[in-house]
């Protein structure tokens, strides 16, 4: 059980600059200082191109910052090797992407199993855990279906199930309801909120408004890579 209130993630002057082909620079994330507490449900809201996805990638150890630091459980991610970062993603972080990012060649069951594949658990245990998750997300009858053979809403459910496979302490969801119909979107929101409230999983959701961010315990706004007030963000 995670202790509420303690800092899980802290960013300090976090900056990510992308170089464009023509030589100009784009500051996707600009000197962001942010704390995420254990068990918190944080919403990062901003318009398209405001730097939400980049910020999530940096927090989730998918990318390295140009400057500044990300502290995860008190350790600077900048000090970790690629191998240690992979291990952190495997054990502690679950990603939910707007475009689901499922592996098209694998069935629903295998898409969950693949997250457990590098861990040293037996194939039987992998299968059992994946089946349980499919059951939780009402996808058991779609176990042998490829992602393209299930509905868009089911794909997002599957993506969340995969994110939960390794029992992460942090879920990073990037526009989780952006591509799906409102009814399924509501189901997805309910599942994510339930995860946070019942299982105390820290939840960070990035949204440009499709996600009901008023459900979050805390909302921060992002514009041009900087944390701003709600008014400045135009919401």
């Amino acid at each position, binding site marked *: 059980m995670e202790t509420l209130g303690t800092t899980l993630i802290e960013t300090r002057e976090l900056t990510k600059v992308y170089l464009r082909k023509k030589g100009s620079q784009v500051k996707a994330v600009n000197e962001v200082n942010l704390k995420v507490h254990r068990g918190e449900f944080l919403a990062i809201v901003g318009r398209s191109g405001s730097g939400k996805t980049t910020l999530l990638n940096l927090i989730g150890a*998918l990318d390295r910052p140009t400057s500044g630091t990300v502290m995860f459980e008190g350790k600077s991610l900048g000090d970790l090797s690629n191998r240690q970062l992979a291990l952190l993603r495997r054990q502690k972080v679950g990603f939910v992407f707007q475009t689901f990012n499922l592996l098209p060649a694998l069935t629903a069951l295998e898409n969950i199993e693949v997250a457990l594949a590098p861990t040293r658990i037996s194939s039987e245990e992998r299968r059992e855990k994946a089946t349980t998750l499919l059951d939780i997300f009402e996808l058991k009858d779609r176990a042998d279906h490829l992602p393209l053979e299930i509905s868009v809403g089911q794909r997002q459910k599957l993506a969340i199930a995969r994110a939960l496979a390794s029992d992460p302490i942090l879920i990073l969801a990037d526009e989780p309801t952006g591509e799906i119909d409102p009814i399924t979107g509501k189901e997805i929101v309910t599942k994510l909120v339930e995860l946070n409230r019942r299982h105390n999983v820290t939840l960070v959701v990035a949204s440009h408004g499709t996600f009901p961010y008023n459900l979050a315990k805390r909302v921060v706004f992002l514009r041009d890579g900087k944390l701003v007030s709600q008014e400045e963000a135009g919401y």
Partner: protein
Amino acid sequence: MIGIVLEMYNYYAIKEIRRRKLRTAANTMGYIVAVAFMIIMLSLAHAYTLTTTDALRGIGTHFMVFIPATTQCPCEFLDVGPIIKEFYTETFNMNVVEEIKDLPGVEDAAPYLMVILGNLTIGGIDVDRLATKTTAVSPEEVVEGRYLEADDDDAVMIDEVFADLMKLDVDDTIDAFDYTFKVVGIVNPGIHSRPAGIAHMYAPIRVVQEMTWSYSAFNHLIGGDANAVLVEILPEGDVEYINTVKESVLETLEGHVGKKGSIVGYGCGTPARNVISLTEENAWAISLILVASVTLFALKSQLGSVVERTTEIGILKAIGWMDSDIMKQILIESVLQGFTGGLIGCCVGYVLTFLMPLLGLISAENLILTVTPLIIIAGLIAALIGAIVAGILPAWRAAKLQPAEALRRF
């Protein structure tokens, strides 16, 4: 534990292979063609080498050593005595021959006793020995009748020219050296170059020895068992090696007799063997070039596969796959294709090697066709090395992809 991990990599590698059927088929086919071609090329080159080496024994590196004494006949009334070419020679005992036979590089050594009486020469040969056949006279040179047998007592083979001159035929008898011999064969040793020269008659060395011991004219001239050693060198080594063997043979004979010896040699087998070994070496080179080409093709194909799967690799990294996991996955895909292609290629190559003569694609007359285990193993190893080489760069490239960068390409 290793089993679990390997099972996992194999599982996803096979999934990926099955998903990209055309690419997999093209890569695997490349390995099949390359390995099959390699097996056929090497087997044919090897067969060619075996066959020609066997044939080349007839003109191979063989020579004769003897101790020349004088060019003047030791007998004032008659040309009589042990003779090699234009020299009257010393004789020596059989144990010298056995000693020479055991020298390194010597495949066979045989005694030779050639004597002259008047205008008639007779060569005493050890009929079953390889060195006799390559250096003096061989069964292939029998133009009529048969070759001598070891237990022939009163039988001789006679030279074809001498037979014509004397109007002799097979089964005729000839009186010489106080003996009456029956002609069992007519030979033409002049077909090949013969270091031992050509005698009018050939008989088993045992018979010639007995004849010289019992014939009074030879009594004081011949004290030993033979007056030359016929030597065949192992079919290997370069000219320098052959010269070393020749030297050691000569030194051994000189050491026993205590006089300076002489060599009459014939070494066209050496350059011929060099040419043949070139054929085999070229077959290896061509095969390896082909495998390298297939490897490059597979490398390009695997790189293409990695580029196509950039996002998927990004997803795998996002869910916790390490660089090494990605590398192993891509490498196993490549190795599985190479191994499958190599295995099928070996079978196809094996079958085609023996099928080609049947289909009339090559002339198999006298060809000693074999597919050696070494060639099969070489084919498999070449395919595996090719697959590893073809897989390493794409695997490394995939492993080094930054997950966020890879996902952005979606």
